[in-house]
């Protein structure tokens, strides 16, 4: 199919889809309306379990099993990226070179690193009270560590990033979620049921298992994202084509 005919084909199909979408939108509950049967019920359930952040209550209490699936998707994606971005035959590792960073960037990065790390952990720990939680905070923690790459260089990042340890952390986070679910069963309830004391609404210890599951997810996301970024950064910084191999690769890529 030529580029031109493909575009015309798309425009025709898109017009049909657009008409169907508008027809569907007209039948949706109207914007800003008061009819939210699921929302009302889940807010009541969240307050019954003393979880101030209703979104966290939905994710880690009412739909905890779905979040296990979501966490497993992330786990599988990290695993997939590790397999896809490994060193393949015909490539070699090159030691990263030290980089020159402007002094201002270096100072700002080193200053911001502990602050960002603390904010990330705060977001994980307060997931049941204020907006945030394991997924959001985990990303902040992982990004904070990479400030060292921006502020210093790749070798500095590698020193605080023993990859094997983060791979174990990724697995431990995933396992902790399942173990929490099984612990609820051993306590005589259903898998991932909220069996811990619910505490007082709006305090750090409220929400029962939501706190534990947030911590597990936070650990998995932080470690998983560090491993994921390490794979991509290794491709950019470390892994080079072997010099003797370039001719063979040229032969393969030639049309």
């Amino acid at each position, binding site marked *: 199919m030529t580029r031109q005919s493909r575009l015309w084909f798309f425009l025709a199909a898109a017009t049909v889809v657009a008409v169907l979408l508008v027809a569907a939108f007209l039948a949706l509950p*109207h914007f800003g309306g008061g009819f939210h049967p699921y929302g009302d019920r889940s807010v009541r359930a969240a307050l019954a379990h003393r979880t101030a952040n209703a979104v966290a209550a939905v994710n880690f209490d009412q739909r905890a099993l779905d979040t296990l699936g979501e966490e497993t998707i992330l786990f599988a994606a990290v695993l997939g990226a590790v397999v896809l971005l490994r060193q393949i035959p015909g490539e070699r590792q090159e030691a990263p070179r030290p980089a020159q960073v402007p002094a201002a960037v270096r100072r700002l990065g080193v200053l911001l690193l502990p602050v960002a790390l603390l904010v990330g952990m705060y977001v994980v720990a307060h997931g049941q009270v204020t907006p945030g939680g394991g997924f959001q905070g985990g990303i902040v923690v992982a990004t904070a560590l990479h400030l060292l790459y921006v502020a210093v260089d790749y070798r500095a990042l590698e020193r605080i990033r023993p990859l094997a340890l983060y791979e174990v952390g990724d697995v431990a986070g995933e396992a902790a979620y399942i173990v929490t679910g099984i612990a609820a069963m051993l306590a005589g309830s259903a898998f991932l049921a909220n069996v811990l004391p619910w505490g007082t609404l709006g305090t750090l210890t409220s929400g029962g298992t939501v706190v534990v599951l947030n911590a597990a997810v936070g650990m998995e996301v932080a470690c998983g994202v560090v491993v994921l970024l390490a794979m991509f950064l290794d*491709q950019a910084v470390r892994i080079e084509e072997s010099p003797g191999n370039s001719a063979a690769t040229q032969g393969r890529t030639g049309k």
Partner: protein
Amino acid sequence: MTLLPYLVAGWIFLIGLYGLVTSRNMIHAVGCLSVTQSSTYVLLLAIGYRDGGTAPVYADAPTDARVVDPVVQALTLTDIVVGATVTALLLALIIQLHKRHGTLDPDELSELKG
């Protein structure tokens, strides 16, 4: 009633698809896929909105406050996480594709190679 938020979601969906169809670079295509997917965020949050509602977080709001729907917000979070993982995997695939075929143009990848 207003249809605008729903129409915005539909527009983002279609413009993302347009980018995918006309893309000449795989990395650009992954960006377009992310745009397409973000239409679902807009749609979900638009459905969950309640006039005058605040965030469904009771840390500093009275427990009888009028809040927007927390269920769709939780679904949006799931959506974002899945979107990020798909993007990461696709970019990893593109890196290997580029190593093997030396091109990022999807139209040049039509022939089978051993």
